[in-house]
């Protein structure tokens, strides 16, 4: 598979604090990378640096062999889309208007809504099953609905790479499964490359292809997701002991936080 994203020695410093130090990794087309790490590890910072939201970066990020610093924000938005952790501003837009606004990068000041736009819109709505509440106001949606709309809007940008910042953190188990299935579907059926920030170890181990583990802004580990669930690895990452069992239905290995404190005998 061909190389999509190449992050080389990325460092981010904001207000004299090193949020990320010399991070390097590569992402192939169609890959699904989960970024793990304790709170404050710089996971969200990494996504924001990729999306051009944080600009005070050092190092080279290239996408399809082109450096991101050579792209305008609009060009970037045709390559990478982003679903933030929480939508903080209460919005008085209808769902459909909000999703339509995501076609901004394909428009100039007074250009009309084109057939391509309409196709992208219908496709995004169809995949995310947001057609049931297209005319509701954004500020009346439940957490699960809002997250699907945010993903629909990002899809409407028709980018080869999608960044998701803890897309399921605030959702109940049912909606977590729903959103995870949606992301899987995007990756496998629609060939969208994905970088997801997550705290859900078992989801990351089972559904993603690769793992990037960050700790205090430093690269800790990168590897295949099937190698994630190992005692030392998780302990080094979270300062927490884990026990392992297998899922009663699928037989897959599942990690659970141990009752023991770190350093105690098992």
């Amino acid at each position: 598979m061909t190389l999509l994203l190449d992050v080389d020695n990325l460092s981010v410093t904001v207000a004299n604090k090193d949020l990320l130090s010399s991070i390097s990794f590569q992402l192939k087309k169609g890959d699904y990378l989960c970024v793990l790490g304790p709170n404050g590890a710089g996971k969200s910072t990494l996504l924001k640096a990729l999306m051009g939201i944080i600009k005070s970066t050092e190092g080279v990020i290239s996408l399809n062999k082109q450096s991101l610093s050579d792209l305008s924000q609009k060009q970037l938005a045709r390559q990478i889309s982003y679903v933030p952790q929480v939508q903080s501003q209460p919005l008085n837009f209808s769902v459909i208007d909000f999703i339509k606004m995501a076609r901004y990068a394909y428009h100039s000041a007074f250009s009309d809504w084109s057939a391509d736009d309409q196709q992208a819109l219908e496709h995004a709505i169809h995949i995310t099953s947001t057609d049931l509440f297209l005319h509701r106001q954004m500020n009346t949606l439940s957490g699960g609905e809002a997250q699907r709309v945010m993903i629909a809007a990002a899809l409407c940008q028709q980018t080869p790479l999608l960044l998701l910042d803890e897309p399921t953190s605030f959702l109940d188990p049912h909606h977590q499964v729903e959103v995870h299935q949606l992301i899987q579907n995007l990756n496998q059926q629609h060939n969208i490359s994905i970088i997801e920030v997550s705290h859900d170890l078992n989801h990351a181990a089972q559904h993603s292809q690769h793992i990037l583990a960050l700790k205090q802004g430093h690269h800790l580990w990168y590897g295949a997701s099937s190698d994630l669930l190992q005692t030392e690895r998780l302990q080094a990452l979270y300062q927490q002991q884990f026990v392992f069992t297998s899922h009663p239905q699928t037989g897959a290995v599942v990690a659970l936080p141990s009752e023991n404190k770190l350093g105690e005998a098992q």
Partner: protein
Amino acid sequence: MKPVTTLIIIALSTLLILAVSPYLGLTVDDPAIQHHILTQLRLPRVLFAFIAGAGLALCGMVFQAMFHNPLATPFTLGVASGASLGAAIYVYLGFSFTIVGLDGGAFAAFIGALVAISFVYSISRYQNGFSPETLLLTGVAISFFFSSLILFTQYLSNLTDSFQILRWLMGSLTTVGYQDIMQLLPFVTLCVTAILWLTRELNLLMAGDDIALSRGVSVDKIRYSLFFVTSLCVGAIVALCGPIGFIGMMVPHICRLLIGSDHRWLAPASLLFGGAFLIVCDTIARLIIAPAEIPVGVITTLLGGPFFLWLLIKSKSQGA
């Protein structure tokens, strides 16, 4: 109701107000004098009120969208005070210059406005984003600071200049003629054109900077352009007719209730409504104690104060 229908209704009402208001309070019977009053006094005044009101309303709308706060306007954030100080210093120093035929006072006010807005923006940015409280308190602090500097300027001035500053600080359209319209029009036209050009960006800015950036909006570039044109517009209006408060807060808010939050509709609606609104306020100011007049700024502030409180209480009770 569809936005286009609402906009047509607002446009027709505005035309009606434009047509009727010059005739109100016409007390002389002599047709020749009537004609003179209508064409030389009333008409320029109504047109001027329309342009100023439209400009103030649009600038208010832009501030509300950029700061994600219904209470953020050039007036509540101290930008108008900055402009006032610039204009007061211009009067005090006895400057009288023109730049490409435009009055230097407008440029002095523009610089004052730009200083104030840079100040508010850098403080709110330093304070980790735009917490509504920080933002408004910064605006209040800046307003006080500039107001005391204006008082100081006034104190230093001679009696004539001092009275001129005081009279103008009340916000008035009394002495307006066609030449004032020509002074104001270039600034407001530039600002209105820029804002109508950037309505899609304003929509995305409402969703927050992160979303706007991820959709491809060059947020900083857009924000600085908007600061620049709104400062020019507010500066010119303040220099020519004083700080007429609260239009920029009330009008966009009412329009949002009428036509929704989409700036492609909200901007033209605010423009028309703002123009018509200031004409109505000015007509009231002209008629209420006729034959004397009160400054129009008194009327808008009397309406705006309670409106501000209502918005404040409403936004608190919604937790937004």
